[in-house]
């Protein structure tokens, strides 16, 4: 469980993180979404005690990170896959961490195997690793201490589609066994498939926080008419808020029946009418973060 309360970080006049609060419960995957520079990484570094907050506090399993006696055994952290000494081999990197945490050496090979780095890759220096391999090594590093909580910053960066699918499986599996996962991304699609909850941050503030279903439900229906202008006008007259999508459709904040009846009453031909899916959430994501940034 991760609890974040009113975390704030100011650098001089610039406020990078502004009163961020949210909770990650055991057994769930929380997607931490926001555009680049929204304050995701700074928030995660504050949770892990690497950046002192200007205000607020964060705890992991009820304890501030810096007070955890052996944090690697409780929390698996991957904040930057490139932050490893390039002169060490992948295997040596894990072995050092295993020694610090007091983890059985056998786990090093088991985890290299789990993340798909074979013996040959393990003997290579990290300098020679691609970003995707570094992410795999980083995930192995995070899982090494057999933690209950995972904090991952943009773990899908540099992974190929197969790697992304594999990582989702690992994270879903971890949460289904009672683990807590917080993972960030600037791409909605990346976390949509695996997250139970979404926390959206923009301009250093939380602009949306809820279950994926809640946030999806709020995104309305997608409707496309033969004559988009007249349809938009008809909806506006009926008091239904609607926004245009780039492909000429509308996302209306009402149920399908209301939209259908409105169109029928105006004698308009509909080509498409269905619940807005990811595109709607994407729209929401863009709007929310844009609003957050403008505030």
């Amino acid at each position: 469980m991760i609890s974040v309360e009113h975390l704030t970080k100011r650098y001089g006049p610039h406020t990078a993180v502004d009163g961020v609060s949210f909770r990650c419960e055991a057994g769930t995957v929380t997607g931490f979404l926001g555009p680049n520079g929204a304050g995701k990484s700074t928030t995660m570094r504050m949770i892990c005690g690497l950046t002192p907050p200007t205000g607020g506090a964060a705890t992991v399993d009820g304890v501030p990170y810096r007070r955890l006696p052996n944090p690697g055994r409780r929390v698996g952290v991957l904040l930057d896959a490139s932050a490893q000494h390039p002169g060490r081999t992948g295997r040596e990197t894990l072995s050092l961490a295993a020694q610090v945490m007091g983890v059985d050496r056998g786990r090093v090979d088991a985890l290299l195997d789990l993340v798909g780095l074979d013996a040959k890759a393990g003997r290579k220096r990290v300098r020679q690793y691609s970003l995707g391999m570094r992410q795999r090594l980083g995930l192995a590093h995070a899982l090494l201490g057999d933690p209950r909580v995972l904090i991952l910053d943009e773990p899908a960066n540099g992974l190929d589609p197969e790697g992304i699918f594999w990582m989702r499986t690992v994270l879903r599996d971890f949460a289904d066994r009672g683990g807590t996962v917080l993972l960030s991304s600037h791409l909605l699609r990346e976390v949509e498939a695996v997250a139970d909850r979404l926390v959206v941050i923009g301009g250093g503030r939380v602009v949306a926080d809820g279950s994926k279903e809640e946030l999806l439900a709020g995104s309305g229906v997608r409707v496309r008419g033969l004559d988009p202008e007249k349809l938009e006008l008809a909806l506006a007259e009926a008091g239904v808020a609607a926004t245009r999508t780039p492909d000429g459709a509308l996302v209306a904040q009402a149920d399908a029946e209301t939209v259908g009846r409105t169109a029928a009453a105006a004698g308009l031909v509909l080509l498409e009418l269905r619940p807005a899916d990811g595109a709607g959430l994407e729209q929401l994501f863009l709007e929310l973060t844009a609003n957050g940034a403008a505030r």
Partner: protein
Amino acid sequence: MNTATVEAPVRTPTHVEVGRPSIGRLTLVELRKMTDTRAGFWLLALTALGYAALVTVVLFAADPPDRTFYGFFQITLLPSGVLLPVIGILAVTGEWTQRGALTTFTLVPERERVAAAKLLAGVVLAAASVVAGLFFAALGNLAGIAFADGDGSWQLTVGALGSAALFQVVNITMGVAFGMLLMNSPLAIVLYFLLPTVWSVLTSLVGALKTPAQWLDLSVTSMPLTENAMAGSDWAKLAASVGLWVVVPLAAGLVRLLRREVS
């Protein structure tokens, strides 16, 4: 890569309370980090080469009466005195220039314990360098007896050994302190060698600095350590210069290390 292999290493997250890593374990980890990179390996290899080269020089170039166990041992203090501090510097600056700090401080958030482990690892390395020096000195002395008509005396007092060990500990600790304060490998290495030299040159040029130099020039005050000739005010002078060149940068470096944001 399939779900079947996921089962074994990722166990059901259960809570096992595990104590914090002991300072001894952290010291071992830091020692390993000092030696498992190419830079660390080559610095140690270079030190060993330096031992062998200088022992050979003494074997052929020194006067036969100087070819004693202690004579050979003294010369080994030179390469380690120069190169060990560089290992000490890199042990700290590497965390920042190679970005290992993110991992290090995520696993051990109590940064002062990491700092203590690095200092202790430096002491262990200094002790190991003295043992290696004794080994090379013994080889040199044996060769001197056999081929070079050396004096061949095996005499080595506890005081001489202790002074030599202290000399190495002071040097590598100064390296760690400079690394901690400057947090940048090239800058720390350059200033580590440049500042004391500039200070020595200054004091030899400016008459008014002559007395302070006797107290605050570490290269002068630590000289008697390598010759086992500490006497009278030498200890006080050594303490004063260690205060300036080791304790002050170490204290300031610790403050910086504890406060710096890791990103």
